[in-house]
């Protein structure tokens, strides 16, 4: 995990330096938006594909699907609520456009 973490961090920093130096200019900016969207949708497709290909996912879901859905929905809902509760404090003194 630590190697992966360092790899992701390094890629983000390299990308950040490219962006900071104004890499590509405005022309490439619009094209990059499209490339980014296509890559993102492809990545999501692959992630879905992995779930569909994994027999363990399907067999576990058929057996424990209801419990899994209840637990995951409840986990997500409570974590969203708690983040919402502290949002004002966390973003104090910053101007976030939302």
């Amino acid at each position, binding site marked *: 995990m630590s190697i992966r973490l360092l790899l992701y961090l390094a890629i983000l920093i390299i990308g950040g330096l490219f962006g900071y130096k104004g890499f590509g200019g405005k022309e490439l900016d619009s094209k990059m938006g499209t490339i980014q969207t296509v890559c993102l949708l492809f990545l999501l497709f692959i992630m879905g594909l992995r779930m569909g290909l994994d027999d363990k996912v399907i067999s576990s879901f058929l057996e424990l699907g209801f419990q899994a859905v209840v*637990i995951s929905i409840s986990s997500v809902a409570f974590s969203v609520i708690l983040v919402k509760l502290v949002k004002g404090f966390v973003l104090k003194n910053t101007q976030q456009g939302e």
Partner: protein
Amino acid sequence: MSFKIILSVLAGIGVGYFILPSEILQYTDYILDIGLCLLLFFVGIDIGKNKDVLGKIKKIGVRVLLVPVMIIIGSIFGSIIAGFILGMPANESGAVGAGLGWYSLSSMMLATYSSRLSALAFISNVTREIIALLTIPFISKYIGDLESVAPAGATAMDTSLPLIAKSTNPQTAIIAFISGVIASTSVPILVSFIIKI
């Protein structure tokens, strides 16, 4: 965009289940890694272009840690509540929720405790990842950018990060990465601690 996201995930599941042979699964690792690295590079460029974003994160300071802490507390509390409804012991449901979406690690850690709980941790955290991918754009649009980090849990530092970055802004993307790192680091500690309670 949200519709395209839902369609991509569901199409992937459908094609994987009905059309492609399961031997292909091992090769998807490489595709996923390359795609993820490329997208993280784009996320980095977006962050770099917004020159004031690091200043904003500096202003937030240690308060940023509240985001992963709340995600962790909410996930464990939520799963214990769900477990209560389902008639499960609090330590078991809590340990499943403490996986924070990291399905491979949480299921592996619970395998020695019970194979059924291990399978439940696996499928619950897979389901959490699917829910995250489907809801992040909606949560950012209708509830708020910072809240959209919450469903991702541990995956906010990798697989969910490009989606969070696309749906929100560079500041939230940095917070998501920090939150994902802390959540991921906490998973092994929390799962092993909670199951022993």
